[in-house]
């Protein structure tokens, strides 16, 4: 058995079947080679990209040429703070990457990078109407997630904690509520700090996990990429296997009879 989820248990988003339940962000890696090796080690099939003006060149300049063939590029609208900019960025992304999938981000606060959920619902509705497969970065509010599904989003991407904070899942209770009620796949996005966070998200019922900083900024990005791959597999397997209930008291595992020194 390897770290990937079995073929018999794919993640299906908008009719597309994915073997890996881990989505990787491509930002903030020490360099291009480490990024490529980490993606490889993670087993991810879908990786994210941002859309920026050409004048702004970094190593990622030819991201498409680099990875276009081997991975599905999922463009985001990171940094957009108005419906108008988010929609236009999504449309440019579709043109640039020849995909109608978009990770919709609509930032409501530059400091916390929390989404503006009211505008988000409106932008999502517009983009769905324009033929997009929309995966919105949202809060863990079960009503917001349901409304996003109602306007036609293909999945929802609630945050575990603020982007890049590494605080993991600050509100597992809400996350579980969202997973229980969502008619579309739930991809945990943002805040993952280490492998157990990813495993826990899957155990709570998430269908997938998106990770960027926790891998890109780890001391050893390749090692952490493999850790996340295993953690997502572990969490998914545990979810399917059905965990034992939490009990407030102890229950002996070894037999209680036949102890030496005891009476007959």
């Amino acid at each position: 058995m390897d770290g990937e989820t079995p073929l018999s248990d794919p993640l299906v988003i908008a009719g597309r079947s994915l073997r890996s339940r881990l989505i990787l962000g491509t930002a903030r890696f020490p360099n291009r080679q480490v990024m490529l090796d980490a993606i490889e080690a993670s087993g991810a099939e879908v990786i994210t990209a941002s859309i920026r003006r050409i004048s702004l060149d970094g190593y990622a300049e030819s991201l498409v040429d680099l990875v276009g063939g081997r991975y599905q590029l999922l463009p985001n609208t990171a940094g957009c703070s108005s419906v108008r900019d988010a929609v236009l960025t999504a449309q440019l992304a579709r043109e640039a990457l020849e995909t109608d999938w978009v990770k919709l981000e609509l930032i409501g606060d530059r400091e916390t990078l929390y989404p503006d959920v009211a505008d988000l619902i409106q932008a999502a509705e517009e983009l769905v109407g324009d033929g997009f497969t929309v995966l919105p970065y949202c809060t863990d509010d079960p009503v917001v997630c349901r409304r996003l599904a109602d306007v036609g989003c293909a999945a929802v991407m609630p945050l575990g904690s603020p982007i890049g904070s590494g605080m993991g899942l600050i509100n597992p209770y809400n996350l579980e509520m969202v997973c229980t009620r969502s008619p579309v796949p739930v991809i945990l996005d943002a805040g993952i700090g280490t492998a157990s966070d990813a495993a826990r998200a899957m155990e709570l019922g998430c269908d997938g996990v998106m990770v960027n900083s926790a891998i890109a900024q780890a001391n050893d990005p390749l090692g952490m990429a493999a850790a996340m791959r295993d953690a997502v597999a572990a969490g998914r397997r545990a979810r399917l296997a059905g965990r034992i209930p939490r009990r407030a008291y102890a229950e002996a595992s070894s037999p209680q009879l036949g102890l030496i020194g005891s009476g007959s």
Partner: protein
Amino acid sequence: MNGTICINGEDRQLAATTVIELLRAEGVDPGRRGVAVAVNGRVVRRSDWPTTPLSAGDAVEIVKPFAGG
């Protein structure tokens, strides 16, 4: 062909009549994958670059994918 045009937030002397001319003038190979263009808030599809005119006051966005989370 007078006046200025705004490219990625910068005002420039208008020196092209179509989107494709503008890209060449900016040193962007129009054949290259991953490039997208919007004029005045509307995406111009790659197939329309040769025929989409530019005029003074237009706001143009020329973008491509970068690493992102």
